[in-house]
């Protein structure tokens, strides 16, 4: 492959170290883009709601999501403001800001 991002897996290694035990976590990922990071960690948590205001990126994220993760990852093409209005109640164990602040 001509370009490879973080083949060393440093990002996932450090994220796992910072989150700790994660198997039962309900995660909100803000600014997921094309789901590059989502695909790396989703298998370790209970459920991911991954949002990004860019509808094209969300479409790519959905297309690239492996079948085995489809029951635990939900992508939505919304920003944090709109998502907050739609959901409201505090329900997440972990909010992940992935290169989006």
């Amino acid at each position, binding site marked *: *492959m*001509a*370009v*490879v*991002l*973080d*083949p*060393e897996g*440093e*990002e996932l*290694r*450090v*994220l796992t170290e*910072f*989150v700790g035990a994660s198997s039962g976590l309900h995660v*909100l990922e*803000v600014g997921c883009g094309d789901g590059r990071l989502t695909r790396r960690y989703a298998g370790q948590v209970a459920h991911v709601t991954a949002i990004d205001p860019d509808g094209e990126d969300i479409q790519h994220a959905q297309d690239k999501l492996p079948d085995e993760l489809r029951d635990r990852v939900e992508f939505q093409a919304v920003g*944090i*403001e709109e*998502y*907050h209005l739609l*959901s*409201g109640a*505090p*329900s*997440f*164990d*972990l*909010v*992940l*800001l*992935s*290169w*989006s*602040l």
Partner: protein
Amino acid sequence: MVHALAKIHSLLQPTGVLVDIHPTPEPPAIQVRVGGEIHAAGWLREADDYVEYEEADRAINEVIELRMFVLERQGRFDFTTHADTLSDLKGHLEAEWQDAFIEDTTILAIEDLLRTRQRDKEILLRESVRISRLRPHSG
């Protein structure tokens, strides 16, 4: 940014945590690996000189000062992009990082370092990334 963090605060359970990952304001280093040796070639530049990353740092500090969140842990790691050729790296930047550019002197240095018969070689773009773990303030 502080406004967005306030929204996030209200979506977290009281026992939940926020993990923020964003690059540090330092320009990413561009290196060339030839066999087992890594050579410095220069830096990646951005049109706005990483202002948004400094703003992200300030926003994190502000929500801590506002007692919205408590910083539990902070660290850094290297996020490395590997490119086989200069053309590959430029193509990647054009697609994913439109306001970034490589200065001519750095391009010349990369080309010079890649001009070797050694086949095992690649370009490395090394970003310094900050990760922070915060929890909602209980008081």
